[in-house]
């Protein structure tokens, strides 16, 4: 059960800084995911830890030992690849026993562990099969078992489910977490699928342009993202620009122009500060037209309705010409709205996040590039 610590890791490729001065500590037994837009350096990060690439500067510690100069094979890691990488010329048994064999362990020593792993992934009856004869899901389970039979305690997963079908992916991710927790391993899991990361991790790392933007529990990243980029990248959110109009005892009032005003809970701004307010599409309540309460109410016309299974998405053009997305779970209470209808939504202040307006502009700050 090793911990991992990175201190000031930097890695450049030509002009691109893939890892820019990264500091990170992963605790024993933790399941940590790394998410971020493509090219943000998340794969570079775990390749640095595995020793597949060498950082230009900085130190890597695994279990308290500096491993910068250790070759891959001496780091005691298990690495699971997106393209699975089971050796095509070996059957399942030879693949899974590869680690013990090349480490020169006696068969007596390694066979029980190998059998246990094969039982766990329910492939004990198919050890003679070649990788190409197995389904993608089975192949990836075998790859995990192979990593574990060499007694890896630090599991590095590089988009391990990326090559699999959606259904298999959803099932396997929970199996992965259970495995890691049952065997008391430490896992670092790189994925571009934020839902995957959110649903299985103890903590999630959000990366962008080679830097760590934010680290937090899935709940915190979704409900209280500290960073406006995280708010955009994790889940879906509405972004509205405004200025601070009043500062009250219990929060502030943000002016969104054309008479739209919202109360937020944050107070640490000055009057006339340029801010961005953010709220999730599902954190609103539809108000009846004849309801007289105007508090924290956003009104506009529905310009588009999309159904995606149990969720209905309304695109609404507000009176200040900004567009927001509002979603409700489909239930027997269908609001029966159609395009062009007027819609009023109440957004509770405690679900509105407020950020200072970014210096380089909002779209640049949220850009996934």
């Amino acid at each position, binding site marked *: 059960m090793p911990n991992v610590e990175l201190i000031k890791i930097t890695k450049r490729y030509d002009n691109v800084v893939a890892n820019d001065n990264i500091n990170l500590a992963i605790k024993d037994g933790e399941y940590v995911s790394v998410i971020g837009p493509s090219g943000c350096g998340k794969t570079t990060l775990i390749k640095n830890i595995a020793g597949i690439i060498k950082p230009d500067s900085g130190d890597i510690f695994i279990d308290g030992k500096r491993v910068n100069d250790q070759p891959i*094979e001496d780091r005691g890691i298990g690495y699971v690849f997106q393209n699975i990488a089971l*050796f095509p*010329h070996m059957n399942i048994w030879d693949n899974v026993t590869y680690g013990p064999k*090349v480490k020169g362990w006696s068969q007596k020593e390694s066979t029980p562990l190998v059998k246990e792993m094969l039982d766990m992934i329910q492939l004990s009856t198919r050890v003679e099969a070649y990788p190409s004869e197995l389904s993608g899901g089975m192949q990836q389970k075998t*790859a995990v078992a*192979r*990593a574990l039979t*060499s007694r890896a305690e630090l599991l590095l997963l590089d988009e391990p489910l990326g090559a699999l079908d959606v259904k298999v992916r959803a099932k396997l991710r929970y199996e992965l977490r259970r495995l890691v927790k049952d065997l008391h391993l430490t896992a670092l899991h790189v994925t571009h699928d934020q839902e995957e990361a959110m649903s299985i991790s103890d903590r999630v790392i959000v990366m962008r342009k080679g830097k760590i933007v934010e680290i937090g529990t899935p709940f915190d990243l979704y409900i209280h993202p500290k960073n406006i980029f995280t708010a955009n990248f994790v889940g879906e959110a509405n972004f509205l620009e405004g200025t601070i109009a009043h500062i009250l005892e219990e929060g502030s009032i943000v002016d969104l122009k054309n008479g739209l005003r919202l109360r937020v809970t944050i107070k640490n701004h000055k009057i006339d500060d340029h801010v961005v307010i953010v709220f999730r599409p599902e954190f609103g309540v539809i108000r009846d037209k004849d309801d007289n309460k105007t508090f924290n109410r956003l009104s506009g016309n529905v310009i588009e309705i999309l159904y995606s299974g149990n969720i209905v998405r309304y695109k609404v053009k507000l009176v200040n010409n900004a567009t927001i997305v509002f979603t409700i779970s489909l239930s027997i209470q269908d609001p029966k709205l159609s395009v062009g209808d007027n819609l009023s939504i109440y957004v509770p202040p405690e679900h509105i996040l407020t950020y200072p307006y970014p210096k380089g502009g909002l779209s640049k700050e949220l850009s996934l590039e």
Partner: protein
Amino acid sequence: MLLKPKKPVSSSKLVVWITLIGFIVLVLLPTFYLISYVFLEWDEVRFEVFENPIIGDENWKQMLKVLFFSFRLSFSTVIFDLIFGIPLAYILARKNFPGKSLLEDIVTLPLVMPTSGFGFATLITWTTVAGLGGVLGLNSGLIPLDAFIPLVNVPFIVFIVHVTLTFPYIVRTLATKFRSIDITYEVASRTLGANPLTTFRKILFPLSIPGIFSGSVLAFARSLGETGATIIVAGVSSTASIAIVRWTSEFKLATASFMGSLLVIIAWIIILPVELYLGQGKRSLNVPFVVPISLTNRILKFENYVSKKLSRLKDLVPLFIVAVTVIVPILAILNSVILYWSADPYTGKIEGGVWNQLFGPSQYFNILLRATLTSIIVALVSTFIALCISIPLVFIIERKWYGPPIRSILKIPLIIPTSSLGLSVLLLWVSQGFNLIGSGIWLIILTHIVFAVPVIVESMIAAYEGSDISMYEDSARTLGATAYNAIETVSLPLIKGGIITGFILAFTRSLGETGATFIVMGRDITVPALVVNMVEALAIPAALFTSTYLIILSMFLLVIIRITTRGP
């Protein structure tokens, strides 16, 4: 709206037929005729080889001796190539370092190098005082001409020449194979605890067995058929290829073709199982026996040690070999030309200088100019005709059900020894066969077409299969292109790189070809054949100059290859 009328189906059939007939007559027929000629003239073969009234079956004994020598030479060459070619291919495929593309060029150089000129350069380097011997302060060459390598019992200098000329086949084929194998397998093996050497033995090596085999076949065939350089360095020893040249020049055509057929057939018997195995499309070779644990553990310990302590060695030794076999001879011959420029540096005689031999009474410069012209005409015309056959042939190979067998038949001209090739073309087109043309430039052209077609086809197929041609063509068809339009506007531009590479490879090979040309050229001498003549006439300074001239010409062409194949 302008709609081009659809071309009638029959014209497409016509193209296919013309291509196939051209291919069969120009490329395949000579070899088959060579073999059938042995049967037609069996009485003469028996008389010359087995039941000669004066020497009995002495010729047969000679043949066996020469054949045995040739195969011993080719086998040991391939083994040596593999031992040092595998690490070099690995470096080229997996490592990035400054000067890598230069190294690749240097490794490729012997492919485009005129063999007789290069053979002469190697000879100078190792056996004369103008080469390494002089550099090391000796009064003679570093190695005597008759030095033999123990165990395999082949002359050192012949071995060196064969290694140099075959090395690129192994290195290039393997580097391509290694590149095609996903590096993730190796990384996975490392993460599971295997050191780099164990990883190579258990992962990369078994996965690249097909590449190792096909590279070995190419190198083996090249060594077996090598004539141009061998004839210059062989001295008293004779390979099968040289024996064919000798018998042909003595007009013992039946004997020569018997020897040529034997060489072709034995080569096939050795190569065919490999080809069949490769054709099965297996991904690797499974070792059928079990190695005891104690031994595996000892191997693992050894590999651990080597990986940790000696990894530099595997990088440096192949580089050293490339430097010594390719770069040093070029430098040595340049140096010699300078030394010999005005006079023989040892005797001081002006007649022994390059200048005098070129422009003096022997007038070698005029002959060289004429030979250059002949060489260039031959290279241009033969490569052009080969191109006309190859382009439709590639599409036939890729699309028709009878394509794959054509592709494997194409291996025949690639593995046929060049002197047998020359002989076969001579037999087919001159007096014994069609009796259409005599020795000379047109016969050289016909000979060069035979090896130019497979060279161009192979490099086009590589380009064809490297990009998803049928997908692009299909999308062109959905946009309204006819089959011809699609080929013209989509497929041909996509494989342009392969066509150009093939053209230049065939062109340089034609420029440098010696063995076959020597047999068919008659009075129209080419530059590489001229080098052989000069060496035989002991006009060493003129040979030095001509070799240098050829080498510089081929290096220039290599630069063009690099520029055209570098891509956007």
